[in-house]
């Protein structure tokens, strides 16, 4: 089944000062599919991910060339509002980073900053988001306790709930399980599967088994270039290039 393209990049170049971190990367992300970005450290996969919601804007001296299209809009168009973009393209980070606020406030935060004032509506969305992130049962009796009292895995699912609360269409995940134990990792992976029915997910991971388990498509990055992208099953069983094969079989990287 072919699905619509939710987001794509065209010949994306990225520079930190004079250092070019990405070379003409073009990828299409199908709607409600999971795409995994793999490759050795420093290959540019995280930089690429952060181009998709313009988080790289926070760094001074960067330069972007090429296009990043969400639906039909170029997100680097000067007339585009970056705040709205980030509400549509959410992000979950490598280390769980809940705010030192209550569990409830963490999830309600995104709604409040985006202007939702109706308390009943906020309460409803908080509950829905926590359920979507499969953490509701664990926290429903302690919503007013500090989020920092949760375990690492719970914190990460809370961060996913927090990202979901503002209703993103695309969810970027930057090694979301790399700081977690195997059981917490498994829960996050199951969650990714469930979320992909409603969201377009792009996940950076160092863990190739994880990429194989959770993604529909996998893109292999090396030295700032997209080397190969294919259906995950095909890429891992019949890689088209020697370089990809070497990496996924653990011969380098």
């Amino acid at each position: 089944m072919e699905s619509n393209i939710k987001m794509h990049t065209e010949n994306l170049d990225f520079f930190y000062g004079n250092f070019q971190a990405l070379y003409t990367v073009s990828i299409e992300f199908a709607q409600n599919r999971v795409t995994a970005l793999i490759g050795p450290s420093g290959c540019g996969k995280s930089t690429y991910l952060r181009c998709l919601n313009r988080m790289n804007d926070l760094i001074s001296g960067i330069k972007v060339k090429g296009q990043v299209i969400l639906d039909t809009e170029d997100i680097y168009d000067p007339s585009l509002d970056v705040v709205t973009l980030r509400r549509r393209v959410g992000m979950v980070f490598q280390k769980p980073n809940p705010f030192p606020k209550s569990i409830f406030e963490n999830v309600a935060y995104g709604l409040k900053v985006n202007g939702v004032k109706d308390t009943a509506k906020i309460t409803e969305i908080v509950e829905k988001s926590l359920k979507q992130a499969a953490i509701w049962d664990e926290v429903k009796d302690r919503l007013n306790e500090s989020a920092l009292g949760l375990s690492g895995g719970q914190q990460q699912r809370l961060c996913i709930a927090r990202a979901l609360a503002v209703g993103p269409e695309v969810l970027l995940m930057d090694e979301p399980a790399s700081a977690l134990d195997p059981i917490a990792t498994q829960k996050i992976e199951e969650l990714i599967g469930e979320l992909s029915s409603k969201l377009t997910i792009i996940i950076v991971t160092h863990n190739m088994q994880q990429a194989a388990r959770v993604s529909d498509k996998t893109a292999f990055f090396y030295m700032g270039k997209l080397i190969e992208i294919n259906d995950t099953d095909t890429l891992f069983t019949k890689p088209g290039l020697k370089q990809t094969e070497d990496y996924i079989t653990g011969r380098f990287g």
Partner: protein
Amino acid sequence: MIKKRLFTQKIWFSILKMAVLINGAALAVILYFILSRGWRAISWEFLTQAPRDSMTAGGILPCIVGTVCLCLVTIFVALPIGVASAIYLNEYATQEKLVRVIRLGINNLAGVPSIVFGLFGLAFFCIVLKMGVSVAAGGLTLGIMTLPVIIGASEEALKSVPNTYREASLAMGATKWQTIRKVVLPVAFPGIITGSILGISRAAGETAPIMYTGAVFFTPDLPTSIFDEVMALPYHIYVLATAGTHIEATRHLQYGTALVLIALVLGMNLFAIILRSKMRKKLRI
């Protein structure tokens, strides 16, 4: 030669420990010295009346009120400007060269001797701005002197807020200002407040900046507006100990005043510490 290495370690640890002990001992000796000589002067009358009989009797109420007023003006001047500058420098400013120059300026401001602040205050606030010798002029002078301390403390507090909080907030579609206001400041607040109170308590004990700008030798009246001149604790000690006609007769009053000043300053510091631990507990960090 494990024995020798352990021995070296022992020696160095002892030296470090000594350094800490000297700190503690200095404070203890000062406190003991002031307490033992000053406690007899402390009475209800001493705290609630104005000096009389050429300042050889009576109390120090005008000095206490004067110092508190000066501190309040200092807080109103230095806290908002200092915190705002720190937020700008740490969160907004992007031109590294400009920021470096501004920081250099702030650091140099911190190094200016307090008497120079006093002379500047006299020339600028009292004369040019026609404030005269007043709480306003004295408080402004102390405020400028305290600014670098507050900026430094606030910047440290802002730097200690993990960047991951900022990223998480921005990634949810918050603006930079919302991120600062709702995530960064609440986390940095305990550090900002503690650092600021420590800076202000330091200012409370300063003599040189206020001796030309806010404090006077003697006035039995309490201030009714910020353009009144006041007596102040540190300046009163200086006056009694050096400029009075009955220096020996007022010795116990000097120590009594010093004791009140130290109690005020340590009280503020204690308040800062309690406030910080309370707020930290609330944030659970």
